[in-house]
């Protein structure tokens, strides 16, 4: 194939692929589950929504921004929880957080009784919903506990597609997943860049410098520095395939130790950083990549 034909073929592939990022949370869940198996729980018509936002003059969404669905992945029972990033920044309130935590706890009960359910979390969240403060934080802690309990039975697979990314307490939930899938558009971090700029000043971090931000916390960097297990283009079919692969490559009987269990390994990685030397995305890759080799 000559270079022109190759670039035309690449362009055509780009045009033909279905963007996962552009999908709503509900569309994302449908795209990942086996076709025709989507069955939503606590959907918008159940109207289990935030009691706190209207008290503060904010219109609440009927599903509080979380889509919970049962269905199958390669004919095996699955549970998917997806966060709608365009509603209140994908923030976790009392209801949205409880929906995810409750669903994971029910899956845990099933797994403990020998009925395996494959859990998938589609993150798109700025973290706790500030208007619901402690109630959201409590729900996030329950999500953490449920992921840790559940992954003893079955891998918990997380996906961060973008463009919101995954921040705050929910970045810990992503880090607790057995397998984490990201796209180059994804971001993963504790504090979002705007928060860092606001608290530490623009000399510390310019939140408008997209190249800089993605070089620090973007999907490619997080994958290259061992915080994510798979890096994929923004393609719904590729992401659906990667979710299936994540369950098949992490055998249920002998799961690899999750990141949060490898405390010494990460202590060693942190010790390798000299805080007196300037550190950027590229130099962290150079420093850690030889150490990340198995």
């Amino acid at each position, binding site marked *: 194939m000559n270079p022109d034909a190759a670039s035309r073929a690449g362009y055509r592939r780009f045009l033909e692929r279905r963007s996962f990022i552009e999908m709503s949370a509900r569309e994302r869940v449908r795209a990942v589950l086996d076709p025709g198996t989507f069955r939503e729980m606590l959907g918008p018509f159940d109207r289990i929504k935030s009691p706190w936002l*209207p008290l503060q003059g904010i219109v609440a969404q009927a599903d509080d921004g979380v889509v919970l669905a049962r269905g199958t992945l390669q004919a095996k029972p699955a549970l998917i929880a997806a966060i709608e990033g*365009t509603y209140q920044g994908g923030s976790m309130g009392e209801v949205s957080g409880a929906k995810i935590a409750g669903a994971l706890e029910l899956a845990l009960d099933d797994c403990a009784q020998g009925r395996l359910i494959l859990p998938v979390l589609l993150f798109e969240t700025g973290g706790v919903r500030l208007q619901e403060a402690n109630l959201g934080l409590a729900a996030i802690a329950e999500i953490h506990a449920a992921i840790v309990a559940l992954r003893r039975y079955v891998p918990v697979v997380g996906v961060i597609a973008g463009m919101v990314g995954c921040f705050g307490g929910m970045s810990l939930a992503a880090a607790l997943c057995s397998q984490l899938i990201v796209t180059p558009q994804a971001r993963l971090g504790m504090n979002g860049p705007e928060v860092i700029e606001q608290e530490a000043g623009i000399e510390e971090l310019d939140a408008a410098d997209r190249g800089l931000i993605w070089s620090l916390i973007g999907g490619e960097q997080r994958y290259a520095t061992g915080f994510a297990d798979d890096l994929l283009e923004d393609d719904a079919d590729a992401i659906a395939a990667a979710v299936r692969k994540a369950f098949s490559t992490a055998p249920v009987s002998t799961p690899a130790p999750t990141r949060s269990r490898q405390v010494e390994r990460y202590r060693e990685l942190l010790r390798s950083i000299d805080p007196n030397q300037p550190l950027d995305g590229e130099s962290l890759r150079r420093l850690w990549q030889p150490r990340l080799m198995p």
Partner: protein
Amino acid sequence: MEKIQYDYSAQHTVKQRVHVGVVGSGDLEVLLEPSPDARTHVLVNTSVDGFEAIWKNVLDRFFARFHGAVSIEINDFGATPGTVMLRLAQAVEALRV
């Protein structure tokens, strides 16, 4: 935040329910269900106060063409009248599929 309610007469029943949209910036969510009686009921929850006359214009125009007996709840986050019309049209189109 404002709550606005309208009623319209209807000519035929609707059996499905449809959910479209998101309560995101400049957008809205529409929950459409069969009406409990023979009339159409619309409840608007909007984050932007003071636009009741415009809501009435948009909804009057929409229900001059659509005569299904439905209960509609709209959760609005600052959508323009054009976006409101598109979301309502999308909901009604989903009824036909």
